[in-house]
């Protein structure tokens, strides 16, 4: 049971989601956030917080994003926890509507 951060977050990282998470399950990389599937309790309160609609329940992840399920789990193991909102990446607004951002992901 988990929610998943999809590619829309890459190079934006608005971090609005982390403030509302009751179980502190977000992990932070250089230009992407991920959800630790072992901690997420599927409460879904993060979904409406994301300005780019990057977060969705595992079951609702569309076909072109299913690779993000495993990626969230893998990256969550090595990235540190983030529990407080911080400024988005400086050029977040330029990237927010772009698709196919996976090659931009810094692991």
């Amino acid at each position, binding site marked *: 049971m988990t929610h998943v951060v999809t590619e829309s977050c890459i190079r934006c990282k608005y971090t609005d989601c982390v403030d509302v998470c009751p179980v502190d399950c977000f992990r932070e990389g250089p230009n992407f956030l991920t959800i630790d599937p072992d901690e997420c*309790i599927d409460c879904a309160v993060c979904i409406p917080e994301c300005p780019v609609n990057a977060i969705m329940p595992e079951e609702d992840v569309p076909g072109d994003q299913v690779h993000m399920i495993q990626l969230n789990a893998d990256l969550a193991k090595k990235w540190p926890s983030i529990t407080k909102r911080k400024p988005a990446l400086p050029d977040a607004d330029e990237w927010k509507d772009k698709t196919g951002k996976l090659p931009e992901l810094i692991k």
Partner: protein
Amino acid sequence: MIETDALVIGAGPVGLFQVFELGLLGIHAQVVDALPHAGGQCVELYADKPIYDVPGLPVCSGRELVERLQQQIRPFAPGLHLGQEVSALQALPDGRWQAETAAGKGFVAKTVFIAAGVGAFQPKRLRLEGAEPLEGRQIHHHPDTLAASGQRVLVLGGEEAAVAAAVALADAGEAASVTLLHRRDVFKAPATMLAHLLALRDAGRVQVEVGQPLALRLTDGRLQGLDILDLSAAHRAVAADQLLVRLGLSPRLGPLADWGLALERKLVVVDTARFETSLPGVYAVGDINHYAGKRKLLVSGFHEATLAAFAAAERVFPGQPVHLQYTTTSPKLHERLGVAAPAHD
């Protein structure tokens, strides 16, 4: 073996209110929870956060809501079995249910209410390679299982449970050394406890380290310490013979996945008239259940608990009518609540 009319699994807000609704119908309940205290998510996740959507209570904290619910169910004096997780549930030939906790306590119940929320809260484990085989020997989640005498003890965590454990170990003075490791240099604990920690650190009795654990240091399968990534992004070793992992609690669905209940997305499927599961006499209420239109809100859970209690009453008192009565006017309910009947002119 405890025989009961109703067994409630989960002492969160909905489990507690389930006891109340059962009590009004004359059904006494036993309650089991994995945590050592009542309250579930309201205490573990929202203890000091304000709740604004309980009818008639403009605002209260999670802890306050649980205190009020405990006060509300006091007339019904439920059996409380805290710090225990129900591990098995089996049907008996007579239609009752047999439940057992991991600690070996047994119940035979006419009805069972699963109010398990998001699952049983368990200690978060240290997920580093090689950690699991050392659990119980060199890696511990509770101070009680740790023999600190002469050992270099490393406590992991940044919240009260971790700080309290480090302080207690240093005060006891039996460990060869005590180190507290947290990923940030901010600790969440009461001010007096933090002052005590700083005093112990300044006296050289506790080392405080800041960094992210990267790997266990093992020699011939024995733990020697941890590799950490410190704040300056440098790799460093922290020596330890014993790790005390106090990273907080995280809910796990746990054994109920194996009880034969119809599940959907790891939630227990119920009907919306009785909140009964696929197992007759077993009801599911609150965040753990699923039905069309389900919303994980306190008020939904309270509604579900009310209808589930009425459904269960038919089973507990077969052949007897189950009447709807109001707490405002019913002498029978006043008697059950232990309150005086209102004076009439």
